[in-house]
Each structure stands twice: as C-alpha cells, then as structure tokens.
C-alpha cells in the first residue's frame, strides 16, 4: 500500500472519482491510533468499536468542510474524543447511573474483559487512570500513551498548553498516589 501524506489524501478525497478510495486510506492510516484512544476512554471493546465507527462516519460527513486549518489527525482525535465522552454521558443518562458507578463499571470491565491483558501493576495503573476526572483522563492518555505534544493536545481539546501541563502533572501525582495506596 502506497503511503500518502494527509495533504495528498485530502486532495484525492476532494476528487469524486477517488473519494471512496482516499477515505479508505485515511481510515487505514488512523484506525489504530483512534481505536486505542477511544478504547482507553470507554474500556470495553464493543463500545469502542461503535464509537470508532461513528467517529469515521462523522469524519466522512465533515471532511468536505475540512479546510486544513487544523491537522487531519488532531481533527480526527477531536471527533473521537467528543464521541467517546458523549458515549459515556449517554450511558449515564440512559440508565440514570451516577458518575462514580460508571467508573466502577469500567473498572470491573478491566478485570473481566478477555481482551485486556495486564499484570497487577498495569491493572492498578488503569484503575488509577479511571479514578481521574474525564477530561484529565483524556489528557493523561494522550500525553502518557500516545506521547502527543502539548500543542497537539491543545488543538484537540481547545485548552491552553499551560493548563494542559498543569493538568498532566496533577494527573501523574494522583495516579502515583493511587498506585502506592496512600
């Protein structure tokens, strides 16, 4: 498969004859990053699968209006993040579940899901991450696992770099404290 940069892919997408093929290449290029970003937020594979599909469908619908003011991958991350947080919000409102119980459910999924393989320490780390407030959790994941630059995270979340640095530092302190059991 030929490797195209985002600018070339978007140019193909704008041509009617290569539109479908170009979008297929975009999905192939970003599906894994988007999937794991979503999976870290919603934890369950089936839920992540639904959210990822919806993310790409929304991207297809909005790509005509995408003017490359942002980069394609930060734009996709933004859609994926909003879709994931909306999914959790709907889950809470649909079943009248309080915030704490949703996190508890997600934590139980961590222990029982056969598609999660983690040793005790990694499991504890995942539970610590789940104890963070939602937005802070997203910041932590993007910085810690995806190793994204603060500038890119800022583009995704619309938060200043300074605020993100502070948020990440607080998150690391909370996670460390959770794991040590203080």
């Amino acid at each position, binding site marked *: 498969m030929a490797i195209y940069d985002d600018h070339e892919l978007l140019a193909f997408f704008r041509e009617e004859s290569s539109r*479908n093929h170009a*979008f*297929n290449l975009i*999905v*192939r290029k970003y*599906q*894994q990053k988007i*999937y*794991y970003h979503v*999976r*870290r937020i919603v934890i369950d*594979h089936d839920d992540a*699968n639904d959210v*990822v*599909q919806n993310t*790409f*469908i929304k991207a*297809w619908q909005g790509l005509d209006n995408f003017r490359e003011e942002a980069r394609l991958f930060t734009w996709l991350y933004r859609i994926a993040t909003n879709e994931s947080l909306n999914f959790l919000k709907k889950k809470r409102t649909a079943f009248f579940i309080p915030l704490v119980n949703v996190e508890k459910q997600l934590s139980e999924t961590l222990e029982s899901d056969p*598609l*999660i*393989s*983690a040793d005790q*320490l*990694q*499991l*504890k*780390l*995942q539970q610590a991450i789940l104890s963070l407030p939602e937005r802070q959790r997203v910041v932590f994941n993007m*910085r*810690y*696992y995806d*190793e994204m*630059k*603060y500038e890119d995270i800022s583009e995704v979340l619309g938060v200043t770099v300074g605020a993100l*640095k502070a948020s*990440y*530092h607080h998150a*690391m*302190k909370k*996670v*460390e404290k959770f*794991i*040590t059991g203080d």
Partner: protein
Amino acid sequence: METDNDNLNDFPQLRAAGKKNPFSTPESYFDELPSVVATRIHSNKHHRINWIPRLAVIAGVLAGAVILVNWYITREAVPTTQTAYEITSEHITESGYLFEMDEHLLVEALSIESIENEFITNESEELQDFLIDNTTDINLIINEL
C-alpha cells in the same frame, strides 16, 4: 518529545508500570474495520436519498396547512367587522342620540332614500309604471328635466 514537565523519575510506580498497552482486539479487527465503516457510510447515504420524497410530502402538507390557516383567518375577519358594527349600533341606541333626533327628519330621509333606491334599481318599464301609479303630472316632469 517534551519531557521536562513529566519526568517519570519523580513517579517510581508509574515508571515501573510502564507504557505497555493492555488492550487488544479480536483477530483481524483492523483488516475488517475499513470495509465495515464504508458499508455503514453507504447505507447511510441510501437512507438519506429516501428522505427526499418524504421531505417533499412534508413540505406539501405544511404548505396546505398554511393555506388553510390563512383561509380560516380571512374568513374569521368578516364576523369581526360585523361585531364591530353591532357594537357601534348598540352604542348609538343606548347612548340616547336617536331619541333626541327629530323623527320627522328621519322618516323623510328614509323615504327619499327608498325612492332613490327604487329609481336606481328599476328598469325603464317599472319607472313608467311608478309614474303612472303615482299619477305624476307630466308638466312637473318636464319642468324637472
């Protein structure tokens, strides 16, 4: 990569846990996902096309409703005017203006009006009958002309 602000040396447990991804997917999940997404996109497209005739029907029904409402409001406007007229008549009657008026003047005005109306509406033959029935003096008519 920026590491100044997130030096893991200050967080030994976090460093020990590492960055290993604990999540996995069913086999060949990523091979199939692009075609699953494409199928959903195209089924959504067809679904949208089916909406066009439905929207046309809805627009037609709405236009009909607007015309009906407009007709109803226009029809309602006549009784409203009549009501206003009735209120005015009642007001005049109750106010006692009519009792202060000379009734001879009223009778004279009404008779002139009725004669004028008959002149306006009658045909020429009826006009002749009227003049004969009232034994009108031919000299008077000539003088009036």
